[in-house]
């Protein structure tokens, strides 16, 4: 199957999924932007390099998979936690989405993998149903301030409304080892498609060094 045919089939499949979603009135994930426009005509795939940022909102004890309700808006004003850069190199296959954190666009991750001489951060895996996606990173260890820490993050989101090359959603990252309980920071990510990568990225990645 050549690339064009595969692209067409994947788009048809994505359209069907979108149609199903829209017709079934499936509830959108709460707490996130409405990622998929109703008039979106093109299905999408998570292939390529995405770069952007995560605006950090709040942090609290707990793990990323916990409910972690946002702080009471009427409570104490939240501190401005700023933002971090984030870059992902993603490849979508039938089994799901895989990829790595690209280090060129973020300073808060360190080298965890080297593929064909290129350093990458933590590996991420997840799924994309044509509308929404969920990615979880591997858990990585580090030593900081004399403490043995572990980090893992999760991205849940989808395509931005009217911006088929933009991913938006919620970012959660959990830190273990800093204190007696796991701590999680919650933010909102915006990632823009930056460049394509080959489908065999995981094995022979073509990294855009523009």
């Amino acid at each position: 199957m050549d690339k064009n045919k595969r692209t067409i089939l994947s788009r048809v499949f994505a359209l069907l999924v979108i149609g199903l979603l829209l017709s079934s009135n499936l509830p959108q994930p709460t707490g996130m932007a409405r990622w998929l426009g109703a008039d979106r005509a093109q299905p999408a795939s998570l292939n390529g390099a995405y770069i952007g940022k995560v605006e950090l909102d709040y942090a609290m004890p707990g793990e990323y998979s916990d409910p972690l309700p946002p702080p009471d808006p009427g409570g104490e004003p939240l501190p401005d936690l700023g933002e971090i850069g984030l870059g992902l190199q993603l490849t979508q296959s039938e089994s799901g989405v895989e990829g790595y954190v690209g280090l060129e666009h973020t300073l808060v991750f360190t080298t965890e993998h080297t593929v064909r001489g290129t350093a990458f951060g933590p590996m991420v895996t997840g799924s994309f149903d044509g509308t929404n996606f969920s990615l979880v990173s591997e858990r990585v260890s580090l030593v900081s301030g004399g403490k043995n820490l572990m980090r893992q993050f999760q991205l849940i989101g989808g395509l931005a409304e009217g911006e088929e090359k933009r991913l938006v959603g919620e970012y959660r990252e959990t830190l273990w080892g800093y204190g007696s309980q796991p701590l999680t920071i919650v933010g909102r990510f915006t990632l823009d498609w930056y460049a394509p990568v080959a489908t065999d990225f995981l094995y022979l990645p073509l990294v855009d060094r523009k």
Partner: protein
Amino acid sequence: MYRIKFLDRRWLFLPGVALLVAVVSGAALARIERAVVAPIPCGPGEESCRLSGDFDPVSVEPAPGVWQVSGPGAPAFGALVYDPDYKLIEAQAREKLTCGLGVRQALSPYKGNVAFEDYVKAFDYNVGWGREAEASQFANASCFVAGTDTLIEVVDEADRNLREARDLYAYLAVYAPEYRFRADSYYIGLPPPGFTEALCGTTDKENPDPVDPAHSGLVLDPVIDWCNFPARLRQSVREAANLRLLFGQQFMVDAMGLHFSGVDFVGGENAVRKELAQLRAAKYQYELAEKGLAEALDRGLGSGCYVSDFYTQSEWSLLSRAIQNQETAQSHIATRMSYMDIASPESVPQAQAQAMQAFRQASVDGYVKLIGMASLGAAQPLGVGCDKGERPDGLLAAEMAANLIETRRQANELTDKRNVFGFDVSFTPARPYKSSVPTSCDEAGAGDRGLWDEAWCAAEYAKELQNDEVGNTRAFDNSQVALQTEMEEIRTVTDVRVGKTSGCYRSDFANDQAWYDCVGQQDDLLNTCLASVAVPIDDQTFDSCMRNAQIKDGEARQALYDLRATYGVYQNVVKKEDNIYERITHSDDRNATVTEWLGAAGALQTVAQVAQVGYEFVNCIDYGEVGLADAKSTPACGIAAGIWAAMEVAAGGVSTQANIEVENANNEQETENLLLDHSELMIEAYATQQQFFSKKSAYLALLDSMGRDLLEAQRARAYFQHSPANDPSYRMVRDSSRLQLAKQMEYASRMAYLAARRAEYEYAARLSASNFRISDIYRARTADDIKRYLISLTGVTNSLAGSATYQTNASDFRISVAQHVALITNETPAERTRLFRDWVAKYTVNDPAISNKPVLKFPITTSLLEAGLFSQVIQQGYDRYWLLKLSGIGDPKPSSNGVSVNLLTDQAGLSYRAVAMTQGGVVHLRSFAGCTFDYRLLAPSVLLGLEWASNQDPESATAVWNANVNEAHAYTENGFRTPTFMGRAASSTGWEVIVYSGAPVAGMPDMDLQQLTDIELIFSTTYASREPGEPQPSECTRIDW
């Protein structure tokens, strides 16, 4: 009965996981044994040693509803009881806190602590972690384990003590029956040795900021309540952190400051390498500070509480500061790594990669701790009753976020190819390299001052400031040395003298005031006893007075005893005198006549009368302040006074000269002998009195001396405290001159960098190929470094091809817009004109924003490449041209004419029109080798962050002047040429030309643009010459930054 036994370096773990951090984390409680059971050593994790208890609202505390663990204990040793268990734990905690505190205070810059002077301040000259340290300068010797010989060992030991104290106090805060302590006379009664106040109050007396009742402006020492265990826990935490932060900051200051060798400032690569070492040392100290603070986060106390549950904002703030300081230090490390060890262009990427790695490390550390701090701020204590402190304020997380942004900004500068000055390294300053006329740094720049000259003058001024700073530093240090010498004199001489006299030695007191009080008290007590020094021997008043235990064993006390002994001799004389008197007055010869006595012949007194006089004389001797004057005030003593003069004579001679002649005596010889003894006792009494007065005078002088010495010690201390050299403002004067120098150094460095960058452009050269690294300027730390850099730079450029020696050619080129821009060639003249006018029509603009008349606005790209514009303009020997730049007017060659425009038109009577030209974009220069180098010329004011109009493009140069029409004027005529583009490359991707059709003055006709037949751009240029030849690719590679 249980008994706690302290064994060094053994660990006992109490509750759950960690409780016994507390009882023992440190050197302490190693084993708790039961009297009837064999001792059981407790090691980490041993089940039998884990402490547990009933966590119950019905606590051992009397206050109802207070959550408390009741009856904590462990299988190994059973329940802990107040006495001795808790008291021993408290004593252990107090000892450790006191030890650690002693070290921290000794290193504090306050109060003239000698350890600060010796160890911290001297860091400038001798990074002294490994240097030998006198432990006694820091704290009681018992605070240190054997082998604590170096400064780092002293600090490590103090840190360990403080962290152990922290855990012990945490344990006490949770488990100990505080009310028992506050009812214990040991704690609330007289202060124990080494303390001036009771350890605890019956209620909490803690007051960290007591008000001075005398309003003397002094900051009083905080009032400590040793039974306020949470406060002591927090104090232990803060002291440990401050100890590390103190040295971290010292390393940072040294790294960021000037490197003064004692003779001159030290600069260059070695200085940067030393900075890196100091920054790494600083970061390590900050890491240790953070480690000590953060380990409380997961240090459980077995009650569900963690040590950090007792933290307040002060402790959280220290944690935040320790983290941020690490990040800052790491950022500085990264910045320096970006320009260290660059020996060749190829090593630049490697250095930058290492720098990026360092930035990444800083960022990751900062980020994960930001998560930690922000989460802890939102968290609540886990255990019931753990709400003992505060959660970190959100502002701390926000500060950490801001620090993270700063780190990212610095890293981005590196990835954006900005250098350490913030300059985009792809830019070249649009300002000449050298001044057009010789420059004097003493005057405002004459002519067009070049960047090199500007940098040189800036470095010269920096050198002046540097010399000032050397002087200031030396004066400061000298005054510090003098001050230190004076303090040493006070400590080793005056203080010791006062100590010997009074018995109050300064080293025995916690502070100066307590010592002053002791000396004053001795003076009072001894003077009280002095009043009774002359009472009869059998009177116990004096002895009773001197038995006061508060009287110290000093020279003054001894002198008073000596005085009393002298008086005792007199008393003995009186006794003898009484005996003789009695014998004479009861003898048969009492009425015998004395014919000579004490050298007075012919006297008619009887023996009894003479004896009476002597008796009264001896007994009338007064030991009061005024001596015999009082004696004369009574009749009896008045008689004695009559012989006073004779006595003085006799006392001055030999007793045998006091001849006695007696007549009519039955036992003449015996009577004479009695009178002779009698006389000698009078003399002895007199001499004793003199001796007494002498000793009394000496004693009073001793006390006076003590008072003077004490006053001198007080004055010296006051002088030390208020000495200009010790005055913070004096330091600020020194620091301000340093800041002034630093600012000038930065300016000079930036200008030197720009000069080098400009030189590369003006010579179309690669300085790195001449063994000159532009990045060397990042390592400049002294004015001399900068001057050496500039000398080296000019040494290279003076020798380069393209220097004044070589750049000797000037030529004016005409560019036909029709031919070279519109590329209209080979047609007939009519067709050529038609095509050109079509081209003109295409670029004719009717834009009121430009003019209310049509304008011709067109771009030009001038290219140096073969088949490019200049190869068409210079039709012969083009590949021999290089370094083609535009001239000014009469500069750099007398024949230079700048840039002018000639409009060719069929329309008559126009004379001239306004024309505007702008050169922007990337400019090009051909190098000596034949490479074409690209440059982006940028206004220096933008590079330096000075004012620049936001609506003006800093990368372009623009000029408006008059264009000739049909050569009505010579292009060499002023007003018809512009010098604006002088020094800019003739080749650029971003030329823009605007020809205004409107009449420049009233009365002249507008120009019909469609009558134009061509436009000539006349570029007056300078160029250098070369042999034709293709360059090696490596010769066209420019890498430096």
